[in-house]
């Protein structure tokens, strides 16, 4: 029998405190699971975490930052004068002016003072922005492989590409959000054997929901959720709506997306005269969203790029059928006509055809699909499964 040593100290670094919804979810999942979680990054908002989470935010305002850097410098100096010297050399090297110096020092000092066992980088671009981490910090490094940072940013950013190629071979372990994205990371020198795919998860509460499914032939309520960005493919969705409208299909389509509606979509709505059929809502809370989802018949994901879109998992759990493009890792969750629907990327025509197919589907088939979707979530995308995944992941990294 192995006796558990001290709890592992894991730094979750995303740049900001608090971070995005899914990274905050991750923090919540991990902190309840026998790890000590350290958070570093810019302080965006006052946050309260449970006792297993230790937050060391770097202040944003200049006065506070200067005080913070002096304080942290003294702590480090007394802990190890040698490390302090090395740290200052690195920071001076990368700082072009005094302002940058304080920013850079404010970033690295608290990390060196708290020495985590594993430093888990949430956004791969950090390896380009903060390579000093690798020279100064003696611990294991893990990198999450998510979305744009792997899938397309390095395509147009040569220096990012070379940073990946330089540092990826030195990373101890990678966490990939999907099989698909791990294949992309290998192209930049990530060792396939060091990559673990850990899918994200949804709350168990969603599984008990059972909204009324769509009845064959009736008017259909469609919904898409996700920020305004070209990768979400809303322009393909609107092209598809135009096709449906021309065919005389009765539908309503809601897009929930935070922020100003892009010119492109405004122009399309006007050009296609879809003002009566399409509504674009400027964001809402997760609770409101779950409520709204349950009044809809089909969740459409028209994206051209995703890891595995969480909203699709949530809809599957909550009993809303999903229609997704075959982008990123979506096929790892959705199987065409088994637990949802899949169409090729970048094809408005295919989206329109699939929606028609769904409308005319027998009610029994729809119910089967909803049932299968819930089974898929129960099997692959539960909080428990994600927890176990990360527990093994970190144990393996620290044992290396």
């Amino acid at each position, binding site marked *: 029998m192995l006796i558990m040593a001290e709890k592992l100290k894991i730094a979750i670094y995303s740049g900001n405190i608090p971070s995005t919804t899914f990274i905050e979810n991750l923090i919540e999942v991990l902190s309840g699971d026998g790890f000590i979680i350290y958070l570093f990054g810019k302080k965006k908002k006052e946050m309260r975490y449970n006792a297993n989470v230790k937050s060391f935010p770097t202040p944003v305002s200049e006065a506070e930052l200067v005080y913070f850097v002096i304080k942290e410098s003294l702590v480090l100096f007394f802990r190890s004068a040698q490390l302090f010297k090395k740290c200052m050399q690195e920071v001076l090297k990368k700082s072009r002016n005094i302002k940058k110096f304080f920013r850079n020092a404010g970033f690295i000092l608290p990390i060196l003072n708290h020495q985590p066992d594993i430093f888990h980088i949430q956004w791969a671009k950090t390896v380009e922005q903060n390579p000093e981490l690798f020279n100064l910090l003696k611990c294991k490094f893990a990198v999450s492989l998510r979305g744009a940072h792997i899938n397309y940013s390095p395509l147009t950013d040569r220096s990012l590409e070379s940073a990946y190629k330089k540092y990826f071979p030195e990373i101890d372990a990678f966490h990939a959000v999907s099989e698909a994205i791990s294949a992309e990371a290998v192209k930049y020198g990530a060792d396939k054997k060091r990559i673990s795919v850990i899918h994200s998860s949804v709350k168990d509460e969603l599984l008990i929901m059972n909204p009324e499914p769509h009845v064959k032939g009736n008017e259909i309520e469609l919904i898409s959720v996700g920020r305004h960005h070209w*990768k979400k493919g809303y322009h393909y969705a609107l092209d598809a709506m135009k096709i449906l409208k021309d065919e005389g299909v009765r539908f309503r389509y809601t897009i929930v997306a935070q922020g100003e509606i892009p010119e492109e979509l*405004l122009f399309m709505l006007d050009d296609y005269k879809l003002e009566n059929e399409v509504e674009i809502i400027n964001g809402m809370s997760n609770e409101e969203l779950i409520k709204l989802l349950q009044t809809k018949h089909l969740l459409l994901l028209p994206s*051209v790029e995703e890891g595995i879109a969480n909203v699709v998992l949530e809809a599957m759990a909550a009993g809303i059928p999903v229609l997704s493009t075959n982008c990123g890792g979506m096929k790892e969750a959705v199987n065409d006509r088994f637990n949802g629907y899949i169409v090729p990327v970048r094809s408005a025509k295919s989206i329109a055809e699939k929606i028609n197919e769904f409308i005319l589907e027998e009610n029994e088939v729809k119910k089967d699909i909803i049932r299968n979707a819930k089974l898929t979530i129960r099997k692959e995308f539960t909080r428990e499964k994600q927890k176990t995944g990360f527990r093994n992941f970190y144990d393996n990294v620290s044992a290396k």
Partner: protein
Amino acid sequence: MRIGLILPEAPQYSETFFNYKIKCLKESGYDVTVFSGKRTKNKLFFKHSSAYPVYKNKKIGQFVLFFFVLLKTFITAPERSVKLIRKEIKDGNQFFTALKILYMNAHIITHKLDWIHFGYATMSVNRENLSGVMKAKTGVSFRGYDINIYPLKNPGCYMKLWDKLDKVHSISDYLYAKAVKLGLPDNVPYKKISPAVDISLFKFKNDAGVIKTPLRILSIGRLTWIKNFETAISAVKILKDKGTDIIYTIAGFGSEYERLKFAVYQSGLEENIIFSGKKEHKEIAKLMNESDIYIQPSYQEGFCVSVLEAQATGLLCIVSDADGLKENVIDGETGWIAPKRDPEGFAGKITEVINMSFEKRKETALKARQRVEKEFSLEDQKKNFIEFFKD
């Protein structure tokens, strides 16, 4: 005759349209001053005055400047300043907003002008009362974005402008029609002046009508959703999957490079599609000379001078049915039109042109050249510009 041309910035060397317009007007004796929002360091061949700056972060500096600029304006043009403020207040603006409007127009209001001409309709916003105060006539040019998109984000933005206009210039009939829908009274005199091509720069290529292997396709334009290169990329994928050997060059830069680059990568077309960046005239002429087919898949287009230049060069042009383009290419005669946002449609049209007889292709290219020479010559454009501001 003194003309004030209001532009967002002083035209750069590459913006032939405005430079040529200013040159023509100057040559025929007009006194032209360009008023721009931004300052420029470039050497200019015309009179130029730029707006007083608006700072975002320097509140105190802005206030001091605001105060002195207004003081200076009230001293040098007291009657006009007071009149402008009165008019703005009468239009329902707060006193402070009226002062702000005076500030943003302080570089114009002190001049003596007979015409105030807005180079884009968007330039007229908050300047509608200027010509009334300055006893000048008001003209405006419609170019695309200003009529097609800006009013969608700012509904009713030209309502104050419409009844103050003395003359309207549009680069296509379609834009004019759309402006009328937006409320432009149809009794305001209107003149269509299309862009023109310098045919000495774009020479008819020797091998016009020839389709080489690999097929060389070209597009020119900013990398934005308006130009809709995603459709062209999907069309190239369809052609490649059917076995066509193809090289597609997109010349231009813009904010959506990443979006397009990813589309190319995801479609497995990295060997087939080249982003060549922004090119100067001579390089564009060279690129055109090396290509077989020119495509313009735009979602929306005011008119598009690149398509004219491609026709002048003798390229086989396939364009979308975006409104301005339908006036640019005559389908089946000087080129071909495919449905916008339809990759299959574009791929089909390209295949059709490849399979056409050489004679038919050559004939189309020749006709296109002749039409450009006849209807889109610099001389005609010059005449039209000069006439526009007469009487």
